[in-house]
């Protein structure tokens, strides 16, 4: 009896250890850095480093919280506009990725079983080349004397090069191109599991192919739609590389402001405050997503 309970205790300990590892991981790599950023955002910048929060001048520890950076973020129109513009580009990227990705994933899931792995490979193929290289490649396609303009000019379709580079258009091309796989993959995973009998049952009950799609396929792939949208929207809000390389000086995105604050202005608390606000902006849709997920779970139980 004693032996049984001791092995049971060992087993339970082992279980805590196994469950504990991911928690420790998250704590070290997500929560701690986040708290450091939060701390920096509430400090003041001294000549080369961030001021210490703790003050011992009175003989006892006092904590100094400096909200100046947040006040500046809240009052300066530039930040407000940048957040709005970031969200706008992120929403546009998500919507366009959805518009292209959903039919793509749908036909992938419906294609013969034996060619599906190949199609999946083709989706992932771009990841084999450096992301930076691929964005540069777009540059050579889009610039005024680039491949697209040259071909169109030599064909006589246009006489003046179209200004595509350094516009919101080139930014969206880069964003959609980069994030499309993150939309397709969860949608494909979801749609390929869709039970064909539901579609047949709907058709049997008098639903036209469009109605079957709208009333059955779309609602049943909601989880994939949500997952794909989150995977695209969240990194798109904070994107830095694509607006920097393809967006030109006029496309405002928060990633670039962040960079400027850190490296040009050397104002760490300001940069951190911008980052914290951005995290809050992203956490909102995340929280909605999580709530949706847990509701789904609750329904399943």
């Amino acid at each position, binding site marked *: 009896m004693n032996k049984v309970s001791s092995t049971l205790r060992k087993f339970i300990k082992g279980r805590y250890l196994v469950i504990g590892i991911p928690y420790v991981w998250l704590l070290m790599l997500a929560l701690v850095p986040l708290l450091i950023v939060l701390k920096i955002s509430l400090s003041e910048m001294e000549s080369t480093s961030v001021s210490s929060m703790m003050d011992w001048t009175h003989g006892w520890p006092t904590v100094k919280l400096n909200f100046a950076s947040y006040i500046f973020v809240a009052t300066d129109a530039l930040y407000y506009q940048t957040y709005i513009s970031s969200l706008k580009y992120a929403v546009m990227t998500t919507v366009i990725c959805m518009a292209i990705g959903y039919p793509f994933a749908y036909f992938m899931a419906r294609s013969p079983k034996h060619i599906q792995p190949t199609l999946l490979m083709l989706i992932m193929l771009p990841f084999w080349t450096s992301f930076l290289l691929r964005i540069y490649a777009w540059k050579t396609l889009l610039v005024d004397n680039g491949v697209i303009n040259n071909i169109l000019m030599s064909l006589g379709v246009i006489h003046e090069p179209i200004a595509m580079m350094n516009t919101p258009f080139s930014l969206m091309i880069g964003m959609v191109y980069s994030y499309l796989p993150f939309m397709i993959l969860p949608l494909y995973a979801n749609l390929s599991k869709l039970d064909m009998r539901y579609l047949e049952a709907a*058709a049997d*009950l008098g639903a036209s192919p469009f109605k079957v799609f709208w009333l059955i396929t779309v609602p049943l792939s909601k989880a994939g739609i949500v997952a794909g949208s989150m995977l695209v929207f969240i990194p798109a809000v904070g994107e830095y590389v694509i607006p920097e390389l393809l967006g030109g000086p006029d496309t405002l995105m928060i990633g670039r402001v962040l960079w400027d604050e850190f490296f040009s202005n050397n104002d760490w608390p300001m940069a951190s405050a911008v980052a914290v606000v951005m995290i809050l902006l992203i956490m909102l849709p995340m929280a909605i997503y999580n709530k949706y997920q847990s509701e789904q779970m609750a329904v399943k139980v």
Partner: protein
Amino acid sequence: MAVVSKANIVREDLLRVEGVTKIFDGAVKAVDNVSLTVASGEIFALLGGSGCGKSTLLRMLAGFETPTKGRIFLAGEDITDLPPYKRPINMMFQSYALFPHLNVWDNIAFGLRRDGLPNDQIAEQVEKMLGLVQLAKYAKRKPHQLSGGQQQRVALARSLAKRPKLLLLDEPLAALDKKLRETTQLELANIIEEVGVTCVLVTHDQEEAMTMASRIAVMSEGHFLQVGAPDEVYEMPNSRQVADFIGNVNIFDGVIDEDKADHVTVRSADCLHYVGHGISGHSGMNVGVALRPEKILLTKDQPASAYNWCEGEVTEIVYFGAHTTYHLKLASGKVIKAQALNNTRDLSYGLTWGDTAYAYWNERAMVVLTQ
């Protein structure tokens, strides 16, 4: 057992299938030149093992598959090329295919909404259907919150809601456990009868086919082996395959000895059969004599008659509660099964393993199989 009486009333044909063939991938003949008519109000069962083509035939009726050859008519109208959503036919799917994101009410209303009916009419019809399957209390539940039997009733209500001309049932009871199946089977048959809808039912379960259907088509390798009322198919199978597929059967191989208008005698290795009716055969013809286990009686004493008995050794006694099946090894080495009703609490024959027993049967117990 079955609702035989209804089938005998002459009614107009509702469904007519003419020489329908379905070939998959240019090679596999799933359904091979099948023709059938189903009268209005009839419950017609397609019975067969897996891969016999029964499901393909049903899917062609629903419109999910197009026949390679042949036509399908419903109430005189050619529906062969109509897509499923334009056919006045509804199907109850195997394992139901209830829409998981819709509650019971919306599942039943789904088809009615597609017809663009006004809301009050939809509500009225859904309430009626919920009443019919006794699920009014569960209208707001999602399918996964229901038991298997309840899901089955929702599926039935959904397929009946549009008042289809023809109802298709794909293995309607296969997803239920045995005990539930018996009660549900009756319930299902009663509801269908109440509504008066014509049914085509696909099943691999002969009991399900016999209890529910007014006519059965036994299918194998894409074609019909026999079509008839349940008792007809059971008591007068037209081939060994049918006799073997429907229920248990002992088949004695033999040769016709005497072929008279009112009787035939067949000589087989272990006994001489006297069959009390004439058949279309001739003496010297090789035939099989089919004898159902429940029609065989056992005794410890040798029967005096010259016909219809044989001697064997009891090799196996299988107790089922309501009845017991005895395996008897005959002199030729053939093993026959005899089923005895346990009509008293002690096993009726008092036989045990290794005993010598005599099996005997009535002259009207056998069917001579010429195919």
